[in-house]
C-alpha cells in the first residue's frame, strides 16, 4: 500500500507530506521554546536589582560556538543542495562537516562550558550585611553611577568542605578580578575576554551569606534558566546529530541509490530541524551571554 505524496508534491498544496509534517513539528517547537523564553522574561523581570547577573558566562567561547552552529547551518543546506544536484561525494563531505560541527558544539558545552560553571563558586551576601563586604562589592561607587548593586561574591572556592560541613564557618574564596578592584570603572561592565582570577583571598562568614553554592542550576534563577534552556537545546542538537549520522552512514545514505530524491527530501526535512535549532541558539546567545 502506497501512501501518496511521500516524494511527489500534491498538486493543489504544492507540498509533499514530510514538508508539512516537519513545519508542523517546528511550529510546536516554537511554542516549546516560546514557553521557556517566557519563563526567562518572567523570572528576569521579577528579579530584584543585582540578582540577575551579568558577565558570568564565557563570551568568546559562546561566540565561537555560535559561529560553529551557523557554519553547520551553511554546510547542511549545501549538503542538501549537493543531493539535489546529484553530487553524492559533495553531500558526504558537507554532511560530515555538519556532524562534526554539531559534535564540537556539544563537546564545548559539556566538557568545557558547563564544567567550568560547576567549578565556579558564588555566595549571595545578606541584604543587611552588604556594607560589611563593601570592600569587595563596591556598591557605593555603583549606586553613585546609577548602576545595579552587586549582591554576590564569586570566585574559586578553596575550602570545598565548607559547603557541607556545618562546623566550618566561613568560605575561603579566591576572588574573581572584579571583586579585587570593585571601584575601578573598568569593572562596571562585563569584559569580553574573561579575566583571570585575582590573587586576593576573601573570607566570607557563613552567617553573612543568604545562600552559596557552585554555579549549578539551583544556584539562582539565572542559572536554572540557563542550564534548562541550553540543556534542552543541547538535547535537540544531539538529536539532530544522530539523525544526520544516520543519513551519512550507509544505512541511510544507501537510499540514494534507490531513490535520490527521497534522500534529498529527508535531508531537507532534517536540515529544517537543524536550522530551527540554530535559530533558537541565535536568541539564546545574546539573551544569556551578552545582555
Amino acid at each position, binding site marked *: *500500500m502506497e501512501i501518496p505524496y511521500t516524494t511527489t508534491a500534491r498538486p493543489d498544496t504544492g507540498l509533499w507530506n514530510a514538508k508539512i509534517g516537519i513545519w508542523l513539528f517546528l511550529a510546536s517547537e516554537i511554542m516549546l521554546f516560546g*514557553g521557556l523564553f517566557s519563563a526567562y522574561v518572567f523570572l528576569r523581570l521579577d528579579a530584584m536589582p543585582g540578582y540577575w547577573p551579568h558577565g558570568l558566562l564565557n563570551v568568546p567561547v559562546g561566540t565561537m560556538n555560535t559561529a560553529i552552529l551557523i557554519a553547520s547551518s551553511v554546510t547542511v543546506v549545501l549538503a542538501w543542495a549537493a543531493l539535489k544536484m546529484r553530487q553524492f561525494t559533495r553531500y558526504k563531505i558537507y554532511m560530515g562537516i555538519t556532524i562534526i560541527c554539531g559534535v564540537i558544539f556539544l563537546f564545548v558545552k559539556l566538557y568545557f562550558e558547563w564544567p567550568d560553571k560547576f567549578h565556579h563558586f558564588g555566595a549571595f551576601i545578606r541584604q543587611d550585611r552588604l556594607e560589611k563586604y563593601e570592600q569587595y562589592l563596591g556598591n557605593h561607587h555603583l549606586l553613585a553611577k546609577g548602576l545595579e548593586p552587586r549582591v554576590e561574591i564569586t570566585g574559586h572556592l578553596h575550602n570545598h568542605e565548607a559547603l557541607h560541613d556545618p562546623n566550618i564557618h566561613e568560605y575561603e574564596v579566591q576572588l574573581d578580578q572584579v571583586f579585587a578592584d570593585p571601584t575601578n570603572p573598568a569593572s562596571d561592565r562585563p569584559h569580553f575576554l574573561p579575566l583571570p582570577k585575582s590573587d586576593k583571598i576573601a573570607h566570607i562568614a557563613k552567617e553573612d551569606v543568604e545562600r552559596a553554592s557552585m554555579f549549578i542550576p539551583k544556584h539562582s*534563577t539565572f542559572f536554572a534558566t540557563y542550564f*534548562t534552556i541550553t540543556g534542552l537545546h543541547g538535547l535537540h542538537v544531539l538529536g539532530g546529530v544522530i539523525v544526520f549520522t544516520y543519513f551519512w552512514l550507509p544505512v541511510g545514505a544507501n537510499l540514494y541509490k534507490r531513490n535520490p530524491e527521497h534522500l534529498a527530501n529527508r535531508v531537507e526535512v532534517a536540515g529544517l530541524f537543524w536550522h530551527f535549532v540554530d535559530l533558537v541558539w541565535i536568541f539564546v546567545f545574546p539573551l544569556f551571554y551578552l545582555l
Partner: protein
Amino acid sequence: MDAPSTDLASHSHTAHDPHQHEAGHDHHEIGFLRKYVFSTDHKVIGIQYAITGLIFLFFGFTLMMMMRWQLAFPGRALPLIGHALGNVFGPQMPDGKMTPDFYNSLGAMHGTIMIFLGIVPVAFAAFGNFVVPLQIGAPDMTFPKINMASYQAFFVGGLVMLASFFVPGGAAKGGWTSYTPLSVISDSGPGHHWFWNGQTMWLIGFILLITSSLLGAVNFITTIIQLRAKGLTWMRLPFFVWAQLITAFLLLLAFPPLEAAVVMQLMDRVGATSFFMPTGLVLNGAAMQISGGGSPLLWQHLFWFLGHPEVYVLILPGMGIVAEILANNTRKPLWGYKSLVFAGLVLGFLSFIVWAHHMWLTGMGPVVSAFFQTTTLIISIPSVIILSAFFISLWGGSIRFNTPMLFATAFLPMFGIGGLTGIPLAFNSADLYLHDTYYVIAHFHYIVAPGTIFALFAGIYYWFPKATGRRMNEFWGKVHFWPSLVCMNVIFLPMFLQGMLSMHRRWYDGGQGWNLANEKVWGLTGFQWNVPISIAAWTMGLAQIPFIINFFWSIKWGEKTDDNPWEATTLEWAAPSPPPHGNFAVTPVAYRGPYEYSLPGRERDFTMQNEPIRESDRRAYEAAAAAVH
C-alpha cells in the same frame, strides 16, 4: 459474496474482494505482533487507543466512585472493598477508611486520567485515527510509523501514571492542575524516593502523553491536508473531519508551553531550582534551601495556556461526532454547514487568548482582567452558533431514535447547560465567589460527562458496525442510555447549588461550606445531598455494565450488517466493514457534499459522496425548484 439489497449503483461501489487483504500489494502474512500490537494501520491503532482509553475512562470513574463514598459518608470505611483496598494501598487506606492525602490523590488522578488518558485518547486519537482516513478516502495516515509511536508513548505514559499509585507516598495529590509551590514540595522528604514518587512520576508520564499528542497532531493535520480524495474540497469535508483538524491544531500549539513548564517543575523537584518557588518560603518551620526568585504565577500561565485550549480539545471531536449522527438520523443535511466550520475555526483561534479566566483570583489588574473577560465572553458566541445549528438541524427531520441518536440528541441540552453555566464564570467579579466551588465542578462536568462522553458513546454505537461488521444490541443500548442520562443529571445538577452555597472543591471534608451545602440545596434542610449524588454516581457505574458487555459480546455475536447499515452518505461507509489494510480497493472520488439526505427527485433518501452526478439528478432538482416557485 452477493451485493446487499441496499447496494448503490455499481459505478460508485468500490469493489471488494474478501480474499484480497491489501489493496494493490503483495499478499504476505504478518505475525500476530505486527498485526495487532505493533501495527502501523490506522484502524488497528484507533482501536488500540479506543480500548486502552475506555479502560482508563472506567478506571478514572472508579476513582471518583471511591471519592463519592468519602463525600457521602465521611470518615467511614468503604464497605465490601474497603478492606481489600486497604491491603492494596496500605497506609493510605487504614482499615478501609480514606486518608485526606489519599482523597487528594484520587481527585488529582481522577482529573488527569479522565482528561489525558480517557477523553483525549478516545475522542481525538481513537475516533480520529479510525474514522478520518476513511472519511477522506485515504489509504492510511501520512506517517503510519509515527502513528504507532504516538500510541506507544501514550501507553507507556499511562502505565507510569498508574504505577504512581503504588510507590511510597502514593500518586500525585496536588490536583490535576499541579499548582506550585505545593506540587514542588509534595511527595518529597522522608518516606519518599527522590525520583520514584507520585508527583515526579506524574510529570514524567505527562511528558510522554504530550509527546504522544504532538505526534498524533502532526499526523492528523498532514493527513487531512494531503490525503483528501479527489473532489473532496475543504467545504465538502464532513464536519467531523473539520472538528478533528481544529483539535489537532489546538494540541499542536497549546501543549508545548506546558511541556516546557513540566520540565521546569521537574527541575524544581529534582534539581532544587526555583522556577516556580518564590523567595522566602518556609517549610516545616525552616527556611527552604533554595534560591527563590521564582514565580508560582508562571506555572499557572504556562499550565492554563494549554489548559484552556485543552477543554476545546475535549469538546470539539464530540461535536463532530454529534454532527455526523444528527445528519444521518434526521435524514436531512446539517443546517448551517458553513457557519459550523467558521464557528469552529474562530473557536479554535480564540481559545488561545482566554486562558487567564482560570486565574481570576491571582491579583490581576483591571487592564489584563478586562482583556480576558472580553475574549472569554466573545468565545461563547461560536459555541452558541454550533449548538444552535445542531438544534435547528433537528427541525423538520424524519428522526430515527436509535441508540447513537439518543446519545447525540441528549448531548445538545446537556452541553447547553454546561456551556451556559460557564458564563457567570467569565466575569472576574462573579468568579471571585464561585471559584473553586462545586459550581465550577458542575459546569465543566456537564460539558464533558453528559456532553463529550455521551458523544463518545454515540460514536461507538454508530461506528461499531464499520469496525466490526456487526451491530451492537439496540435494546441494551437503550438500557445503557436512560439510566446514564438520569444519573448524570442527579449527580451534577445539585452541585450548582452546592457550589453557590460555598461548598469547596477538592476538600476532603468540605469544611463549613460543606455542612451548609450538604443540607440546604433547594431550601430543603436536613436532606444530606451528597448521599443521593453519590448513589446516582454508583448507579451510573452499574449502568455502564450493559454497555461493556454489549460492546465485547457484539464483536463476536452481534447482528451482522452490510457496509452501510445506517444508510449514511460519508465516504467511510463506502469501504467494507471492516475495511481491509489500505481501506479502498479503488481510491474513491467525491462528487458531492457530505450530507445529501432527502434531496428531491432521488430514488433513495440519501446519496453517498462518491456517487457521480447524473443528468437525472440535475433534472429532478430543477423540477423540484420550479415546483416550489
